[in-house]
């Protein structure tokens, strides 16, 4: 009905004007499509070439196969590398999430002497390029005659993940409504109970997000790992070394799987959040 009236009152808009108006209105949407296409081109390429029947060097399309997906450990060393990365990722995530969450609560919840220098100490590792973090830690290990390897890599990862955990959890703490805690106290919950039953559940999504971030930073790290892992091979190191002679398609299989897995976790998290909100 209303559209008919509109048509009657504005009978003829020239096509060109309509087109330009449509563009004006949808410019940002069009831009978004281009932006996301750009972001996903290499991901799509990696996924597509995971089906390439390529043999050892996955450079040119040679034909479709499911073989790489059926046998992801087919390339030598690749699953050892993956296993190492997962182990390091879990350990680094656990330690950095615990340490970082404690710091976040201290900074986010208390006024104390040295609070601003604490913030600085958290900011500094993020403001230091990875290569400096990696190189300086390696120098320290060399001084103490500690050989680079598995545990030095875990330590290095915990070190650079802590700051990111603190920042993420702190943001969540800052966004909490303080009245919720006051209400709990008004209802005669003591501090520990308030923390356990009100504060912690409210901050939990932030902690989960921080842990996911820490894991993905650790899993994907190459520069710091390269300095501190010695002969230990992680997945990014495997890819970097293999890149010189062409990476096997199994690496694409693993990269794509990680992508879908992470996507599934994030979407599941969002769904849980939405359910809780309801």
């Amino acid at each position, binding site marked *: 009905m209303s559209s008919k009236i509109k048509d009657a009152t504005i009978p003829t808009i020239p096509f060109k004007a309509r087109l330009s108006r449509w563009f004006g209105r949808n410019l*940002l*949407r069009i*831009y*978004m499509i281009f*932006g*996301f296409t*750009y*972001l996903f081109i*290499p991901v799509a*390429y*990696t996924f597509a*070439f995971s089906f390439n029947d390529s043999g050892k060097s996955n*450079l*040119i399309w040679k034909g479709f196969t499911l073989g790489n997906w059926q046998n992801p450990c087919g390339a030598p060393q690749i699953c050892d590398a993956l296993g190492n990365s997962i182990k390091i990722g879990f350990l680094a995530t656990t330690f950095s999430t615990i340490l970082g969450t*404690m710091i976040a*609560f201290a900074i986010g*919840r*208390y*006024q104390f002497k040295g609070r601003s220098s*604490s913030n600085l*100490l958290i900011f500094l*590792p*993020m*403001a*230091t*390029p990875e*290569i*400096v*973090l990696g*190189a*300086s*830690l*390696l*120098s*320290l290990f*060399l*001084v103490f005659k500690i050989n680079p390897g598995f545990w030095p890599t875990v330590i*290095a990862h915990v*070190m650079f993940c*802590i700051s990111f955990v*603190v920042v993420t959890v702190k943001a969540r703490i800052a966004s909490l409504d303080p009245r919720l805690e*006051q209400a709990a*106290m008004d209802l005669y919950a003591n*501090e520990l109970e*308030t*923390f356990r039953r009100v504060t912690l559940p409210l901050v939990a999504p932030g902690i989960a997000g921080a842990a996911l971030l820490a894991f*993905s930073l650790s*899993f*994907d790290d190459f520069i710091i790992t390269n*300095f501190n892992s010695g002969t230990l091979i992680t997945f990014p190191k495997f*890819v*970097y070394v293999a890149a010189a002679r062409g990476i096997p398609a199994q*690496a*694409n299989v693993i990269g*794509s799987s*990680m992508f879908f897995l*992470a*996507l599934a976790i*994030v*979407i599941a998290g969002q769904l849980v959040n939405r359910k809780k909100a309801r």
Partner: protein
Amino acid sequence: MSITLPKVRVPYLLLFPGFAFLFTFFILPIVNLAQTSTQTPIAGGDTGQYEQTLAFSNYVNAFLDNREQFARSFIYATLATLFALAIAYPLAYAIAFKSGKFKNILLVLVVAPFFTSFLLRTIAWKQILGEEGFVVPTLRSLHLMGQQTTITSTSVAVVAGMTYNFLPFMTLPLYASLERIDPRTIEASGDLYANGLTTFRRVTVPLSLPGVVAGTLLTFIPAAGDYVNASILGSPNTKMIGNVIESRYFKIVDYPTAAALSFTLMAAILILVTLYIRKAGTEELV
């Protein structure tokens, strides 16, 4: 408002384990790096053996020998940061204001590419833009590109790779600060007869500045120290300071020079960052 615990010690107890860790594995290594940077080789010693001699000349030599790579690192990182800002701002704006109920999904999609190993994505770009990819032959057959010109192994490819790889670091803080803008401030600006562009320039952009500052820092800092993009997408002519530090450590076993270079890089970045934050904090950039 915070929970008031009787003991003032609580925050310190919470801080202690994490800070002890950071002191041991972040501060101490940096101090040690400063020491290493002034060492010289032991006369008659093996490769990789050094003694403390307070040779500050290491810094002069390290800098003079690698001026070009230093300059390149800062130019590439600046360019990549600017491109990332130009690409990410409209994207973050669109997600924050124009995506309606798809907001959360789009936000996930911004971070999603980040989950495929960053090396795999960089190598994917190399192959897409390389001789055997489809872009170069197409452009050549359309005569938009010379037969001898290439995309990979150039500084363009390195900067493009860095722009791409650090894009999520730019988009997320921008989104966070745009999303926080109270829509009533934008309405108010319209009520005061500002047109869309003026509102954007005088209201939206200034209010999103914290995100711009955070995003540019999170992009510039890793970009300046990066060497992976330069070694995968570049050539010996696009070496950055990260490449030099890496090869000093692993190929030449020249720890003092590597340490001096690392220290110079860190100091340069910290000075730039401090100046930048001061400027962004006190003056309006618009």
